[in-house]
């Protein structure tokens, strides 16, 4: 039982980073595919499409910070807490990154034909970033309560 609990602790420790990286990859892949399509259609302003396609990558940074904040010597007392906090934060970041990729895809598709909507079309992606920030900040707050 003891190795299992410690194993779950390790899983929780790396989950925020691992899951956030997976989500960011999927999000960037989708938004990047959209940006490549838009590059074929527009004559200028390529940089901003690539910039929007890179937005989901920020979520991996939150994953890195949460994993660093959870890092400590794993014991039977702190492993369950690290597992719960790490896995749920990781799942939240994973979904946020994928959803943000889809929002960026839609933004690129809309703004390639109507450049004046570029700013406002990123708003949904920014909102999703906000949800990722909530998950990130509260993970940091709660990590402080897990025994060292």
């Amino acid at each position, binding site marked *: 039982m003891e190795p299992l609990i410690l194993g779950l602790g390790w899983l929780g420790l790396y989950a925020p980073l691992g899951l956030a990286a997976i989500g960011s990859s999927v999000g960037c892949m989708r938004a990047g595919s*959209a940006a490549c399509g838009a590059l074929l*259609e527009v004559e200028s302003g390529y940089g901003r499409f690539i910039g929007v396609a890179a937005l989901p990558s920020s979520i991996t940074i939150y994953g890195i910070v949460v994993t660093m904040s959870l890092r400590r010597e794993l014991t039977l007392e702190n492993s369950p807490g690290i597992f719960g906090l790490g896995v749920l934060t990781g799942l939240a970041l994973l979904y946020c990154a994928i959803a943000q990729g889809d929002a960026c*895809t839609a933004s690129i598709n809309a703004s390639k034909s109507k450049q004046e909507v570029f700013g406002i079309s990123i708003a949904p992606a920014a909102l999703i970033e906000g949800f990722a920030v909530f998950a990130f900040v509260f993970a940091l707050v709660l990590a402080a309560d897990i025994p060292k």
Partner: protein
Amino acid sequence: MAEQYITLVTSLPYLPPFEKAERSPITRLRLEQRLHMLEPDDARQLVIAEALVSWRMSLSKPKSDQEMLLRCRAALQDISHPALREFVEFRLDQQTILAALRQRKHLNESSFLEQVNGGSRWARVISSNWDSPDFKLAAVYPWIPQARTYIEANDAGALDRLMMGIIWEQLSRIADSNRFGFEAVFAFVLKWDILQAWLARDAGKAKSRFQELIKEVTNVS
């Protein structure tokens, strides 16, 4: 969500409503180049569907309605994508109803079922309700009364506009169901075809083409 379809959809330009368009936003050549991103099976199905339901049908001239229907049925067997198949059936039904309205006006024959049997799910209903103004199908197809009015008034232009509008809306709905998938791609291609047909409308050319057809028919008989 297949990534190459995201690229394909975002590489296609915005299509303005056909009635407001002044020019086509993309040439056929460039569209074909972009369509190379389609999966081979999707591309094959799109070619078959285009031949069947594009505004200017590209199938070779059939000898009879029955032959035409047989060809349509055979082609339909090769379309397995649910949304594309549903749209093709929708268009074939639409064409069947228009053919029935025209036949009733010009020939007043009720042999419609014999001619199109198996060609449309509504053939039997149309035949059974031949004397009803809208074949009792207006609840399913609300555009029938309007189309009937245009056919009776010999207003082909207004009928075209009505049918194009209905198909355009249907394709927009299909595209909205999967904005970055095959649905959005085939909806774009078929809407582009409508746009081309609308922009190519020319009363003078239509008249000369009509006269050519009259000559052709006169020479055959």
